[in-house]
C-alpha cells in the first residue's frame, strides 16, 4: 500500500497497463506534452513516446470515433476527453456507435474503448464547464459507466476497465484528483465493475451515493452519528452495471433511503436508483426515498450561488432527518 492521490493512482494504472499490454494507448487533447489538463497523464509521453501517448487536435467527435475504430481494429484505446462537457460534441459516436456496435452487428463486433473524462462543479467554472453528465450515459444501453470515489478505486477500476471488453465511460470528479488514499501497489489490483462498496455500516438509514458525493455522505454520517442516527453509506462505484442488490439488502435492514449525487435532480441517476428501491423493497420502506442533488439550474459563476446549487453534507443531513 502507498498513500497517493486519486490523480497519481490513475497515472499508475495507466503506466501499469501500458507496460502490460502493447495494445493499450492513450489519445486526447493535451495528454502528451502538456501532461493532461488535470495532469493525469503527466510524464507518460516521456516514458512511452508519441505512439502510445498521442496529442490530438480539438476534435472530440473524431477523437472518440477514432477510438471506436481503433478498438474495433484490435487495440485498447484510452481516450481522454478534457472534461465531460466536451463529450457532448462526441455524443453521436458514443451513443450511436460505441454503445451500439456490438449489439447491432449481432454480437460480432467488440469495442473495448475506455473514455476517461473529468466532471463536476465547485470551481466557479460556469455553466458550460461544471456539469455532471453520468445520467446521459446511464440512459444508454451498451456502454458501462464507472464513477470512482477513492484513489484505490480509481486505480483498480481503470485497470479493470482496460481488461474487460465493453466500452466504458470512466468519469472522474475534478474535485477528487488531489484526494489521497491508500492504494495497493500490486500490478494485478483490479476492482471489478458492478460491486458496490459499503463504506460505513449502519442500521438506521441507507445513504446511496457515488463519486464525490460519497465523501459528502460520509461527512453527513458523522454529523448524524453525533445526533444519534446510525447511517449506512454505500458507494455504488459503477452505475452500469448497477449493483442494486447491495442497496436493496441495506434498505431491507434500515427501511430508509437517501440517494445523493451531483447531477441535476431531475432525470438524474438518483431517479433510477429510487425507482429500483421502490420496485424491490416498497414494503420494507418506512418513508419515501429522498434525493439530494444539484439544483435544476445551469451552474452560476457566482461563488455563493454555485455553493447553493451543489449538494452538501448539510442537505444530506436534512434529507435523512426527513425520513427518520
Amino acid at each position, binding site marked *: 500500500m502507498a498513500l497517493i492521490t486519486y490523480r497519481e493512482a490513475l497515472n499508475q494504472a495507466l503506466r501499469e497497463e501500458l507496460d502490460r499490454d502493447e495494445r493499450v494507448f492513450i489519445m486526447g487533447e493535451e495528454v502528451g506534452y502538456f501532461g493532461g489538463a488535470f495532469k493525469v497523464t503527466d510524464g507518460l509521453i516521456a516514458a512511452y513516446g508519441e505512439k502510445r501517448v498521442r*496529442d490530438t*487536435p480539438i476534435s472530440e467527435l473524431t477523437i472518440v470515433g477514432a477510438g471506436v475504430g481503433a478498438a474495433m481494429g484490435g487495440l485498447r484505446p484510452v481516450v481522454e476527453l478534457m472534461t465531460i462537457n466536451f463529450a457532448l460534441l462526441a455524443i453521436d459516436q458514443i451513443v450511436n456507435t460505441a454503445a451500439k456496435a456490438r449489439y447491432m452487428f449481432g454480437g460480432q463486433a467488440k469495442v473495448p474503448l475506455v473514455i476517461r473524462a473529468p466532471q463536476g462543479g465547485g470551481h466557479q467554472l460556469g455553466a458550460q464547464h461544471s456539469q455532471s453528465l453520468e445520467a446521459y450515459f446511464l440512459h444508454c444501453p451498451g456502454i458501462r459507466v464507472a464513477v470512482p470515489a477513492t484513489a484505490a478505486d480509481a486505480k483498480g477500476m481503470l485497470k479493470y476497465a482496460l481488461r474487460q471488453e465493453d466500452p466504458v465511460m470512466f468519469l472522474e470528479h475534478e474535485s477528487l484528483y488531489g484526494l489521497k488514499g491508500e492504494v495497493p501497489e500490486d500490478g494485478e489490483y483490479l476492482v471489478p465493475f458492478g460491486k458496490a462498496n459499503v463504506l460505513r455500516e449502519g442500521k438506521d438509514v441507507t445513504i446511496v451515493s457515488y463519486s464525490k458525493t460519497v465523501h459528502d455522505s460520509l461527512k453527513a454520517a458523522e454529523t448524524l452519528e453525533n445526533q444519534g442516527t446510525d447511517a449506512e453509506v454505500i458507494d455504488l462505484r459503477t452505475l452500469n452495471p448497477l449493483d442494486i442488490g447491495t442497496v436493496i439488502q441495506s434498505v431491507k435492514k434500515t427501511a430508509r433511503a437517501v440517494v445523493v449525487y451531483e447531477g441535476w435532480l431531475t432525470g438524474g441517476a438518483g431517479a433510477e436508483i429510487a425507482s429500483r428501491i421502490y420496485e424491490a423493497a416498497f414494503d420494507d420502506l418506512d418513508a419515501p426515498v429522498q434525493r439530494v442533488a444539484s439544483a435544476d439550474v445551469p451552474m452560476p459563476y457566482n461563488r455563493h450561488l454555485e455553493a447553493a446549487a451543489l449538494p452538501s453534507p448539510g442537505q444530506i443531513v436534512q434529507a435523512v432527518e426527513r425520513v427518520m
Partner: protein
Amino acid sequence: MALERERLAERAMHRLAEGELLELYRLMTLIRRFEDKVAEMYTRGKITGFCHLYAGEEAIAVGAIHGLYDKDYVVSTYREHGHCLAKGASPRAVMAELFGKATGISKGRGGSMHLFDPVLRFMGGYAIVGGGLPIATGLALSIAYKEDPEVVCCFFGDGALPQGAFHESLNMASLWKLPVIFVCENNFYGMGTLVQNAICQEELYRFADPYKIPGVRVDGMDVIEVYAAVSEAAARAREGKGPSLIEAITYRFRGHSMSDPAEYRSKREERIWQERDPIKRFRNLLLHERRIAPAVLDKIDQEEAAVVDDAVKFADESPEPPLSELTKNVYVED
C-alpha cells in the same frame, strides 16, 4: 499578397482621422490595463474560475470592431474581455462580472468566459471550442432573412479549426451567402499544443478555398491592417456577397489561462513577440508618422489606468446576487 495588404493598410491609415486613431490607441490601452488588473485581482482571489487574458492580442479586437458599425454583431470565445470592451462595454460591468457581482454584464451568472450584452450586440462568449461559429452563422441567417443591413463578426482561436463546427459553418455561410466575417486569432497555440501539431494546413486562411470564400492572412499585431481587412470583408458581406475568413497572426503574452505557467514555450520566443507589442508599435507609429505629441498619448494612458481602477472599485463595492434568485431565469416566465 503581403504587399497588397500593406498598401491597403496604409491607405486605411491615411483615411482615418486623428480622433479615430486616438480612439484605437485608447481602446487597446484600456484592454491591456484591464487585463493586467484582472491578473492582479485573480492573484488576490477577487476573481476565480477560468480566466483567459487577451494581452498581446488587442489589435485584433480593436481593429476588427472598428471596421464594423455599432449595430453589427460580435460573437466570441472564452477569451473575450477584449472583444467585449472594444464593442463598447463598460469596464465597470465587465469587471463586476469577473467579480461575480449582480451588477456584472451577465449579472454574475456567467463569469469571465460568458460575457453578454444584447444592447451592444455583443452576443456572447462561448467556452466550447468552435461553439461560437454556428451561433454567428445563425445570427447572419437571421440578418439575411430579415434583409437587415448588419453583419456578424465571429472571433475564434486556431484551436477551433479542427472542429467540425468550423467546417460546417463555413460551408453553410458560403452556400447561403450569409453576412458573417470569421476572424481566426492564430496565436500559434491551443492550450499547449502548437498549431502544426494540430492542423495539417498551417496557413489557416487557406481553409477559405474549399468553401469558395475570400481568405486572407493579416498581421494581428497591426491594428490598422486588421481594421482594413475587416472593413473590406464587412463591405462585401453587406453587399450580399457572403462570408470571409481572416486569419490574424498574433501571440498571447500570458499563459493560456491564469493557471497556466506556459512552460511549453521558450523565453526567447516570448521576447521576440514582446518586441512586436501591438500597442507600443502603434504608439510609435502615432508619434513618428502622425506627429502626435507624446503628452497626448501619456494622458490617454493615465486616463485608462484611472478607468480600470474605478472599475475595480465599482466591482468590489457591488452587491452579490441574492441567493433567493438561484433558480431565476432558467425559463422565461421566472
